């Protein structure tokens, strides 16, 4: 974890939830206060700590940052829109 304790460097990230993920946490949007340098993996850990059933029920979640699929190593920026994407079933 590379979280920096400098509150001046805090950033706000919005996380969107869809379909079964939204049903599990019973909301469609979560706002998180993070610190500069935080990665998508760090954000995921925060969410899984708060809602353990998210990863238990949906072991193969995908994630997007600003509407592009993203790896856990992605570094988050202020204003980023993160999305928690259960296995898709369009078509």
């Amino acid at each position: 974890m590379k979280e920096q304790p400098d509150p001046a460097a805090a950033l706000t990230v919005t996380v969107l939830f869809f379909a079964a993920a939204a049903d599990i946490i019973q909301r469609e949007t979560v706002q998180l206060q993070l610190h500069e340098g935080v990665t998508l993996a760090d954000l995921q850990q925060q969410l899984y700590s708060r809602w353990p059933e998210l990863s238990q029920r949906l072991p193969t979640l995908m994630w997007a940052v600003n509407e592009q699929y993203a790896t856990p190593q992605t570094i988050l920026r202020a204003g980023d829109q993160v999305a928690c994407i259960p296995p898709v079933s369009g078509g």
Partner: protein
Amino acid sequence: MIQLTHEPLDHAALLQSVSSHQAGAALLFLGTVREFTAGQQTLQLNYTAYESMALGQLEQLQQDALQQFPVTAVGIQHRLGELALGDVSVAIAVSSPHRADAYECSRWLIDTLKQRIPIWKQEHYADGRVEWQHPGEPTGQVAEADSEPQSGASTDGQ
């Protein structure tokens, strides 16, 4: 044409949009709501999407198809909201000089769409269950207790 809409799909317009004097073949694929899947009766489906991302991903899918296959034109429509039996959920049109390429490109598009585009299907079964379809995940965990058999999707899955 790339379209994500809550209205019934105008797939005739989609097919028209790919017609070309350069094409010797045009192929229109429709995914439709099927009543029975593995013995389970579907009453309706509800499609939801991460709309802005889904639209961008559909445009990317169109570009990828045009780069990967010797096809003339590609169009995709996907419907959202409540669909009844027989309704069209997705329409994919491809035109190409030679027909083999239209078939291969069309199959690749529907296969890849089902893997990549952030759209989700919720099944409403005749027995009252309501269930998100999550390919690759155990079923029956989300909306209900784990008493349900494995179930495929009620459109053109597998």
